[in-house]
């Protein structure tokens, strides 16, 4: 009885529009949960939605590939959405010009610290070389991170995992954390979210404050550029300073 129900459900999940509806509904549940907790960043709708969807796919034996035949349509919209970030950036262009020194310094320091500390911590705790190389570009937006990972000898599929998990962590700590370290300025909060947590943290902080979202969007692009230039050089220097 349960077996045949699962088979019917698996058949239904093969219909692309069903995967789209499932994804959207799961996300609405996640957003509802976040609202219930007064918008706390710790209650992350992306994580909740993904967990719910897995809980449906797993018992039905539906593969990720099958799910993506429908969900790929939602995934596809990430491209135009990234382009659309130009609009809030444009709206805040005077603030960005005004704070150009802080923006560039924040990105250079933040991206370097994120990268070096990821490599250092993984190495120190005995991660394999494949993991170390794959974890290095984890703060960069996914397509750029894949390119960097290939260039420095990491495993792109593993890098994608690290990038997404990093984004969720950054989104979750992008609330209270800034109060604790005494950063009240929304421009600096947004920039930091974009530097450390690319698009996922940008989405979270954009839902709270539009100016912060603009600085986060700007930081995605600049962090990608900065890391793509810096990291291949840094990895080549590792043997020279006695690591690796």
């Amino acid at each position: 009885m349960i077996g045949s129900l699962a088979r019917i459900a698996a058949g239904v999940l093969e219909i692309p529009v069903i995967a789209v509806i499932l994804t959207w509904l799961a996300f609405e549940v996640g957003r509802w949960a976040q609202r219930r907790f007064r918008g706390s960043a710790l209650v992350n709708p992306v994580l909740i939605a993904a967990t719910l969807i897995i809980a449906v796919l797993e018992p039905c034996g539906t593969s990720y590939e099958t799910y993506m035949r429908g969900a790929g349509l939602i995934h596809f919209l990430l491209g135009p959405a990234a382009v659309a970030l130009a609009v809030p950036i444009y709206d805040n262009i005077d603030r960005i010009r005004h704070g150009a020194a802080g923006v560039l310094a924040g990105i250079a320091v933040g991206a370097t610290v994120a990268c070096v500390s990821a490599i250092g911590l993984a190495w120190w705790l005995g991660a394999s070389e494949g993991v170390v190389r794959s974890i290095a570009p984890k703060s960069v937006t996914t397509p750029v991170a894949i390119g960097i990972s290939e260039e420095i000898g990491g495993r792109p599929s593993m890098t994608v995992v690290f990038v997404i998990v990093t984004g969720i962590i950054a989104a979750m700590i992008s609330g209270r954390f800034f109060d604790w370290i005494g950063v009240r300025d929304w421009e600096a909060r947004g920039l930091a979210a974009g530097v450390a947590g690319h698009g996922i943290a940008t989405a979270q902080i954009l839902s709270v404050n539009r100016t912060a979202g603009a600085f986060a969007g700007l930081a995605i692009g600049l962090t990608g550029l900065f890391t793509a230039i810096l990291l291949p050089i840094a990895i080549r220097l590792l043997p020279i300073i006695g690591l690796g």
Partner: protein
Amino acid sequence: MAQSLLTLLVCQGLGELIHRVTALPLSGPIIGMIILLGLMVMRTGPSKELRAAANSLLGYLSLLFVPAAVGVVAYLPVLQREWLPIAVALFGSTILGMASAALVMQAVNRRYPSRFGQQIGLQVGEAGDDE
């Protein structure tokens, strides 16, 4: 509104083409974002329709990451053997990167309000207001 989606897609398409041709270390959508920003600066702002399309897409930005996140949750068991160094490295570096970026930006902007912008010629408008 649908036409504005086309504008976004064309910018992304141009970005992808530039990415292919120049091997620039930026993804197509990010290059597309720069192109659209350039267009808006030249044409003094987005049209009402473009703004509406951008706002509705960005209002659901989190949703767009869900399919990728589903793939990740399915992949996690593979990383079981090295979960401790991975978890510490991801948490630690994200906290450190975020804190340093925010603190540095706040400190620099308090110390040198807008001077740098003038030097590299970016500053327009109320130059020197806070000096």
